[in-house]
Structures are given as C-alpha cells and as structure tokens.
C-alpha cells in the first residue's frame, strides 16, 4: 500500500533507501549512505549473476531528479510484481522455496565478497511461479570475522514456521500473521514436539537458540566481542540449508484435498462446465483472475492455459500445497496458489494497519471465479446472497459464479446435520440479489446436473 505522500507503507525500516510511487510508477530511492554497497553489488557482478539466474528482481536506473527525499544516490525502477503475497498466505513448499532462495543468494553473494544484511520472508515474492528477492538493498560488504546479522531473522521468518508446519500442524503458519518479525523462537521451541530435540538442526537452531536468546537478554556488550571466521560462517549457512531441506510435509487428510474425487460431477458435466468457463474467459478476456475456493487449481489451470495470470485462493493448506507442487512441476508461470479464507481474508496489519495489505486492498481484479463456493458461504457460513454479492462487487469487474441448488447432493449433505433456515436460498433469490450489483450476461445449466453457471458483469466501473 502507498501512503498519501507516495511512500510505500512497508518500506520504512532500512535507512539506506525506500520504495515510493510517483505518477503511478514504482521507484526505489537509494540514499548516499548506501553508495559503496550498491556500487559493489553492481560492479562485483553479483547483480547480473542473480538477475541472470532469476533470483533477484531486475531494475533500471532512472533520473535521480525523481527522488522523493534528500540525499539520493540513485533512483531505480524495479520490475513490477503483479501480485504481492505474504508468508502467512503461503503454503509449506512456498515458504521452503523462499527459505532456500535466501540461502542460495547468500551463498552466491559470499563468492562476491557480499552478504545479506537481512533475511526477511517479506523480501521474497512469487513472480511467474518462482520465488524472487525483491529488495535490492539487502546486500552489504562481507566483513571477515563478522557473524551473519540476519541469522536470528532467518530462523524466525523461515526455520521456525517451517518446523512448526512440518512437525506440529500446518495451520501454525498463521502465527506469522501475528508475529510480523517472525515467530519468536521461545514460542516455537515450546510448540514443537519433544522429539525435535533429537534432531540436531532443530535442537541447535531453534531450541538452544531460544535458550541463548533468553540467557543473553540483557547482555548486549558481550555479544559484539566475538567473531566468526569465513569457514565457520559458511558452515552455519550450510547447516541452515540442511535444516530447511530436511523439513518435509505431506499434504493429506484435510477436508478439501480430495474434493474433486468426492464431488458429484459426471465426466460429461465436468467437460461442459470446463467449456462454459473457457467460453466466459474468452468473452471477458481478463488480465488477471482470482479463483476463490480454487482447491487444487483445476479451473485455475483452464485460465492459465489461456496465459491469464491466476491468483488461486483456497482455505485448505493441503489443497494449496498440491496446487503449488503441480504448478512447479509444470513450470506454470501463470498460477499463484495462496492460502486464503474468503470468510476471513487477510486484513491490513503492521504499522498503522497498512504495512501489509489486506486482500481487498490488492484488488479489484478483472475477474473472479467462484465455482462451487456460494453454497459454502451461504449455508456453511450463514451469509445472505446480498452480503456475498456485495463483497464480490468490490472484488471484480466480471464474475464467473456457480449456483448449486438445495436439491444438489452436496447441499443436502450440508443440510443433513442442521436445521434448514435458508428459506431465501433458491435460484430466484440468487439472481435477484446479484442483479443489484451485476448484470447477468450469460447463464448456462450444467448438463446432467442441477447446477448453473453464470457470467456476471459489475454495474460499477472501477
């Protein structure tokens, strides 16, 4: 998010520079005090090496007169990240890939006499299916003897949440939403099973590390009296890499991960539904689609096959994990799977509640796909069609939405354990409420099914 002055709301910690917007364009100011480090990054060949390997965001140097504050050395225009996502929205393998990217960059940087001065998970973004370091100012000259300044941050931002997800519960990644500077190691240590004490990597980098933090709480003077030689420094980085690599999580047993297997579509109905969605996408020709309730991304792949970037959102971490793994396997550059509960979407958090954007602030988007979702919102979450339609009208210009009537076996299953208080849940009620915000452009009854598929266009122009 950008503040009224044009400064990026999340770019205030590093005195070496900041991100800002001017006339709708994104720039980064590099201050004079970072001159030596920036020149080293460029002249050492590190920038070009990382760029060539698609590990660091590329940028162009532009006129320094565009500066937003005194003391500028350079103004750079970074390549635009199409959609900003946050670590608490990532699934296990996304966070693991982001951690390994950080380590890989650190190792390459060391070959150029440079080191990362921070290891924030927020410095990583997923662009065209791969993680990418987006902070050009994360580098500093490696000084022999100096320990890794970012060690604590790496453990808190990456290792602790990965260990908690792999060894305790996948949902513990949501702790990153509360603790913006990473999960405190004493908390991670308490939450991890006792068995993790038997693994050297977790014993050392989390359990003993947490004890050390507690022990040295008020002993700042003594800390700076010790040094770390280059070999030991590299050994530490290698140890962190092994710790991350050895953590694995197998997605299984969640409610939605085998949803397609249990869903009641016949092959003909599924084929018809896919064709309708494809036709609708062709008609609206969106620049970006949010697939809400995407599960493992079956329909996201339809849009992606048309080279449309898709933000593939689902509440179920296991489904998102499978979606991400498949996307990586296929080298799919168009799908970004994210964990997102549409009944409780990511809020604006951090300083002034704007440091990390809410989901809605990252919209509106060209098109939303809400397939086999409305009955979960209406019956599973007691939301009226009016409320659902209102939210979608704030999210998108066009809406591809599926209506599932009460006669459908999925809805019957949902109603089997509760009283049916949903008297307005019928196709007429659905069309009436959505028509207040959208024009119904297309409506198709899905073959061999009681379900209907709609293409709606927002009456409000953004």
């Amino acid at each position, binding site marked *: 998010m950008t503040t009224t002055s044009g400064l990026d709301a999340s770019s205030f910690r590093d005195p070496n520079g900041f991100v800002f917007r001017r006339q709708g364009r994104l720039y980064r100011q590099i201050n004079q005090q970072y001159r030596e480090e920036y020149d080293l990054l460029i002249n050492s060949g590190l920038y070009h090496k990382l760029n060539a390997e698609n590990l660091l965001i590329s940028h162009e140097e532009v006129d320094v007169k565009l500066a937003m504050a005194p003391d500028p050395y350079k103004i750079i225009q970074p390549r635009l990240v199409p959609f900003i996502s946050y670590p608490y929205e990532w699934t296990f393998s996304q966070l693991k890939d982001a951690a390994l990217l950080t380590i890989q960059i650190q190792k390459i940087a060391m070959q150029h006499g440079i080191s990362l001065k921070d290891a924030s998970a927020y410095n990583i973004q997923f662009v065209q299916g791969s993680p990418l370091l987006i902070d050009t100012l994360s580098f500093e000259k490696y000084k022999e003897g100096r320990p890794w300044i970012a060690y604590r941050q790496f453990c808190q931002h990456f290792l602790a949440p990965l260990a908690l997800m792999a060894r305790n519960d996948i949902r513990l990644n949501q702790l990153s939403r509360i603790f913006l500077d990473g999960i405190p190691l004493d908390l991670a240590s308490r939450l991890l099973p006792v068995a993790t004490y038997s693994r050297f990597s977790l014993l*050392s980098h989390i359990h003993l*590390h947490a004890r050390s*933090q507690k022990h040295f709480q008020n002993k700042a003077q*003594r800390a*700076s009296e010790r*040094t770390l*030689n280059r*070999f*030991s420094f590299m050994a530490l980085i*290698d140890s962190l890499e092994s710790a991350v690599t050895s953590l694995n999580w197998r997605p299984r047993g969640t409610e939605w991960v085998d949803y397609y297997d249990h869903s009641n579509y016949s092959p003909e109905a599924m084929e018809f539904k896919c064709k309708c969605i494809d036709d609708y996408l062709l008609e609206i020709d969106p620049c970006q689609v949010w697939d809400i309730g995407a599960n493992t991304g079956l329909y996201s792949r339809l849009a992606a096959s048309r080279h449309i970037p898709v933000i593939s959102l689902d509440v179920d971490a296991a489904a998102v994990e499978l979606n991400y793994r498949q996307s990586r396997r296929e080298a799919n550059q168009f799908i970004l799977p994210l964990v997102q509960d549409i009944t409780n979407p990511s809020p604006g958090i951090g300083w002034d509640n704007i440091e990390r954007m809410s989901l809605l602030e990252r919209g509106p988007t060209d098109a939303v796909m809400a397939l086999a979702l409305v009955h979960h919102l209406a019956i599973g979450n007691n939301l009226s069609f009016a409320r659902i339609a209102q939210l979608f009208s704030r999210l998108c210009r066009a809406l591809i939405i599926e209506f599932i009537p009460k006669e459908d076996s999925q809805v019957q299953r949902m109603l089997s354990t509760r009283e049916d208080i949903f008297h307005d849940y019928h196709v007429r009620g659905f069309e009436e409420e959505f028509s207040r915000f959208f024009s119904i452009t297309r409506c198709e009854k899905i073959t061999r099914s009681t379900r209907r598929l709609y293409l709606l266009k927002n009456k409000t122009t953004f």
Partner: protein
Amino acid sequence: MFCFKNVFKMTLLIVLGTLCFPQYAYSYIDPGTGSYVFQIIIAAFVAVSFMIKIYWHKIKKFVGRIFSQKNK
C-alpha cells in the same frame, strides 16, 4: 588426503579463531545478542561436520575417478 588428525587440528583452530578476535556489528536490524553469540558457538560445531562433508565429497570424487580410470 583425508586425515582425522588434520580435521581435529583445523577444528581446534576454527573454534579458537571464532572466540579470539573482537569486532563490532552495526546493522539496521537487531541481530539479537543471544542469536549473535549463539551462532558463533553453534558455527564452531557445524564447522566440523561441514569440513567432513567437504572431505567426504572429495573422497567420493577421488574414488569415482579411480574406478572410472580402471573401467577404461
């Protein structure tokens, strides 16, 4: 050639090296005193396994080369 005596000597040097030379750290993020001290201690330990790992790779390469020569 791989030798445990050398590994021991190197490890000893590394441990002593890490503990002897004073330096100060300035950064915009707080490295945390406990983390700062702890990484120096743990790095001394992991340096041993890191060295073994490096030597192990060298041995594997060496043995691999001998076998590939024999096969020729």
